């Protein structure tokens, strides 16, 4: 982390903050989906009040946390790796390799800036609306808030690692759109956005909770709800750190391989 990275993050934050109408429209859409999901969850938890170890308040809170995390963590893809994908397609990426700043650090910083903007807008606004409309659960104390605050940037880093790998697939197959859609399907399902992972049937749940996507929503939500307490919080954060480090290391490795592969046409 250098002053340069902070300023890259700041620029990314400002870039996204330009589109006010788009942000408001997005918040509105998140709220509509939040309300729909709450009614469905209410119907489920009315029949089974302790499904997946959640009570109905946990489930409703989970629905809104899910809406808050969609853009913050970029579950569907997007963020700075999309810029890289475009630069790979156009060939501009060749210039990036000659800059005196590492590519990976540059894009991580830009994505963290974007994530902060989305957390403050698309994250917080729907949560407030959800809290007005429904009886939601809040983190139990300052320590839990602190753990949530640590968990969110870690989730962004894990998601960034996956999105960056997807974008880099463009070095080999030219157009990474296809990989992006496949990755989005996996992310939407295994993050617990479609249905909380706690409702997954036994074997599938055992697998899903250790996959990188579990760190997007399920881990932060369980810390928020107090479903993870004491040591379990640290275990959850450790899982996030593990995937963040592993994926970023893989990104660096793939980037080095790609660098040798890039051929600048002409000139």
């Amino acid at each position, binding site marked *: 982390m250098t002053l340069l990275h902070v300023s890259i993050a700041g620029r990314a934050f400002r870039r996204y903050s330009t589109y006010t109408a788009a942000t408001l429209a997005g918040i509105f859409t998140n709220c509509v989906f939040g309300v729909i999901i709450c009614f469905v969850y209410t119907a489920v938890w009315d029949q089974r009040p302790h499904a997946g170890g959640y009570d109905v308040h946990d489930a409703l809170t989970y629905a809104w946390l899910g809406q808050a995390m969609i853009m913050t963590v970029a579950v569907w893809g997007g963020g700075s790796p999309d810029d890289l994908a475009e630069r790979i397609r156009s060939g501009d990426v060749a210039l990036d390799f000659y800059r005196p700043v590492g590519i990976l650090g540059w894009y991580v910083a830009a994505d963290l800036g974007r994530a902060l903007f989305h957390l403050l807008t698309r994250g917080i606004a729907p949560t407030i609306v959800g809290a007005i409309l429904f009886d939601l659960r809040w983190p139990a104390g300052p320590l839990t808030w602190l753990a949530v605050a640590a968990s969110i940037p870690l989730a962004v880093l894990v998601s960034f690692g996956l999105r960056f790998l997807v974008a880099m697939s463009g070095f080999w197959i030219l157009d990474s759109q296809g990989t992006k859609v*496949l990755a989005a*399907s996996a992310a939407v399902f295994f993050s617990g956005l*479609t*249905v909380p992972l706690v409702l997954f049937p036994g074997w599938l749940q055992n697998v899903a909770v250790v996959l990188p996507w579990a760190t997007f929503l399920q881990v932060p939500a369980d810390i928020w709800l107090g479903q993870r307490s004491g040591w379990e919080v640290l275990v959850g954060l450790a899982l996030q750190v593990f995937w963040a480090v592993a994926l970023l290391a893989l990104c660096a490795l793939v980037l080095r391989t790609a660098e040798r592969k890039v051929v600048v046409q002409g000139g």
Partner: protein
Amino acid sequence: MGELLTPLVRYYEISALWVRASTTYRASFWMLTIGGFVLTGVDFVGIWILFHTVVSLGGFSLREVAFLYGGTGLAIALADMFVGRIERLGSMIRLGKLDTMMVRPVPLLIQVCADEFALRRIARVLQALVVFGWASAYVEWSPAKIAMATSMVVSGSVIFFALFIAFACLQFWTADSAEVANAFTYGGNTLTSYPLTVFPGEVVKALTFVLPLAFVNWYPSLYILGRDDPFGFPAWTQVLSPVVAVLMAGVAALVWRTGVRHYRSTGS
């Protein structure tokens, strides 16, 4: 007759062009198509997982929910495939593409909807068809029910056609508000994937009288599944879908005309 068909022929010609272009990157085309299938497929897997926890949702079984899901899924998938590109109206305005289209001798709406026509969106149609087919296997079919199912899919598609067009027109006024439309189109699709008994009575009234999404699949499905209306609406609401579809198409046409009249280019 020829007059009426010409725009459709133009639509076909423009979209065929884009299909040829998109199949050039073969690997990407197939991954996008399979990805589209999986991406909407996980929605239904989600419902299936919910039914691991509960036996019925709002008094409806998994097969009945699958029928509702398939009905609205087919409707939005067809609408999305044929007119879904209109959600990029804002960027067409920004890039000045719309001005180019206006001077061409093909109806503007046809050009906007056929622009970058994506054949891969057929994956979504197929995915909905698979669920719909599975649920249909448990329905006791009669000629009247088959007619009702046909009318449901056609009317449902037209209702979503109209919603896509009407809400995209917001972009004539604020170019980066595309996502508001999502709340009504994709949000409406998610909403109608579940039995409306899951929602409060006011929501159902709103979906009947204000934003008539209940006519996409709910009312015709009640007839096909042989269920009494849980909210006590009269039985004739179940045959109203085609009427609602025509009304919605009229509203959408009006909004589109107003939008185009209001349009003043980007200036620079």
